[in-house]
């Protein structure tokens, strides 16, 4: 995956107030759980504006902030830091299923 090396790409993220779900601000100023729908800021100034916008839409979320992302050749975005990758994608192992019982 070819990474965008300029390092200026970011999205705005937060946790939804009602249920804590990780959400991203989309182009229309709504919060979506889908990273692929997130509005991407491509330079520092746009990032500042994006964050400001996120803060004005913060009624339904907790503490919005910017997440640095990289874009691959196909235009798919992925967070750069491990923490944000995990936040976006979920657990890195299988949690035990609701009915995990082994039979002897």
């Amino acid at each position, binding site marked *: 995956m070819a990474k965008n090396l300029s390092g200026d790409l970011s999205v705005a993220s937060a*946790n939804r*107030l*009602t*249920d*804590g*779900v*990780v959400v991203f601000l989309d182009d229309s100023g709504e919060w979506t759980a889908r990273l692929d729908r997130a509005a991407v800021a491509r330079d520092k100034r746009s990032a500042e504006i994006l964050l400001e916008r996120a803060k004005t839409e913060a*009624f339904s979320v*907790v*503490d919005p902030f910017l997440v640095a992302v990289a874009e691959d050749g196909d235009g798919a975005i992925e967070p*750069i*830091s*491990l*923490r944000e990758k*995990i*936040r976006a994608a*979920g*657990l*890195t*192992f299988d*949690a*035990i*299923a*609701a*009915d*995990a*019982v*082994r*039979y*002897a």
Partner: protein
Amino acid sequence: MPDTHFYRYDDYDRTLVAERVEQFRDQVRRRLAGELTEEQFKPLRLTNGLYLQLHAYMLRIAIPYGTLSSRQLRKLADIARKYDRGYGHFTTRQNLQLNWIKLEDAPDALAALAEVDMHAMQTSGNVIRNVTADHFAGAAIDEIEDPRIWCEIVRQWSTLHPEFSFLPRKFKIAVTGSPNDRAAVRVHDIGLRLWRNAEGEVGFEVIVGGGLGRTPMIGKTLREFLPKDELLAYLEATLRIYNRYGRRDNLYKARIKILVHEIGAEKMREEVEAEYAEMKDGALKLPAETIEAIARQFAPPALPHRPAVVGAVEALKLEDRDFALWLKSNVSPHRMAGYRIVTASLKPAGAPPGDASSVQMEGVADIADAYSQGEIRVSHEQNLVFPHVAVEDLPVVWLALGRLGFAEANVGKITDIIACPGLDYCALANARSIPVAQSISNHFASLARQHDIGDLKIKISGCINACGHHHVGHIGILGVDKNGVELYQISLGGDVDFGKTALGTILGPAVAADKVVEAVDALVSTYLEARGEGERFVDTYRRIGAQPFKDRVYAAV
């Protein structure tokens, strides 16, 4: 409420919990309506047990002194199923964490808890937290007095304490009733150790300022012998000194251990004793009747006499090697000869340590009802304990646990790993800990090998906050972040056996995630080759020092 052998809520306790739930319900309503900012709301939700983690809110349910009735455990299973994803995690402070709770459901979840006299009060926030005890309390052979009596007394005194609800930082208290401290009292903000003096009186040694985390410290003795009925006055004095003089300028220097370190144990003692002198014999003095009324509720069950030696058990031990190993590692002596204490290992090979599904919890509750007087304990090593199992019932319990996946014969062994949730769940973490635990666990899965290696405590933390207690692991592993890459720092020689409370020493440079198993393997090989007669890993380390281990590890990674 069916009879339990521990504190039973009365109408006063129930009323308080119910009123707290209603208060929180209104606070949530106001938050969702925008009448409270997050800054204003945060301490309110924290003191009702609700954290915001990476993916969701996490509810940390208090399990006072790690003791549960089967009815309570079933309710936890139910709540995990109804309001979460059908599983929970038992923590190093004997609590249960549910990782996927919704804020809007939290008041209902708390109301459900209240139905079985449980709550999530003060499991987070800058308040006095869940008071932990020895998970073998009331059943152990070496016990002087049941520490849980005092955990309950302190629990009530500390709940919604009007003066101490905005402390500089969290405050953790642990109590041990036995000289073999299984409650790690010397690494708590206050540790209480029950002991009997030369005059035959039982009182507390009060230890202050222990703790792990960024600046690990072993607690200092504040008072050698404190009469039991003065406990609350002494605690109130100590907390008042902390509330007034604990640092509030720096989050990382705000625990009482820093205050003790900065003013010295002697000065701390002076301050506390002066404050205590004003309070003793006052309203906080515990009437004998009050202590008695609570102590009575912890009276051990009248266990019917059961045979100490059982033919069928002896036979199975010879026939089935897994059963024999399980008896060795997971079964401990009990006060009564015809009984044992059984630990259910929540560390099956390759699984996230300390997790249990709702189905597994219900299975454990069933076993407890049939074979352990309806009672379960949570150890601070993230396992569950059946405190009163008849020797005769060991085979059937072993089989039942096996069906749940909780019969791995690894208690105290290398795969009985303590790990914090780490970066998979926790917003504070720098690195993941669960995958590391899983890879070590898989590598050493062979029971025969584990039993040959013997007692070895690996403790893993995903950040310096040390919720995995890595400082006091025989092998401690601390996840760090270096330029976005997870690295693991290894330390050796930590311990929490009373009298030997020791903090581990860092071995050398941190190793990459994919080298941790090799590093642990190198440590184990070094031990196996050098060990003397009867030496555990940590004994050999103390004898030969770090160098041989260091050489071997860094040659391998």
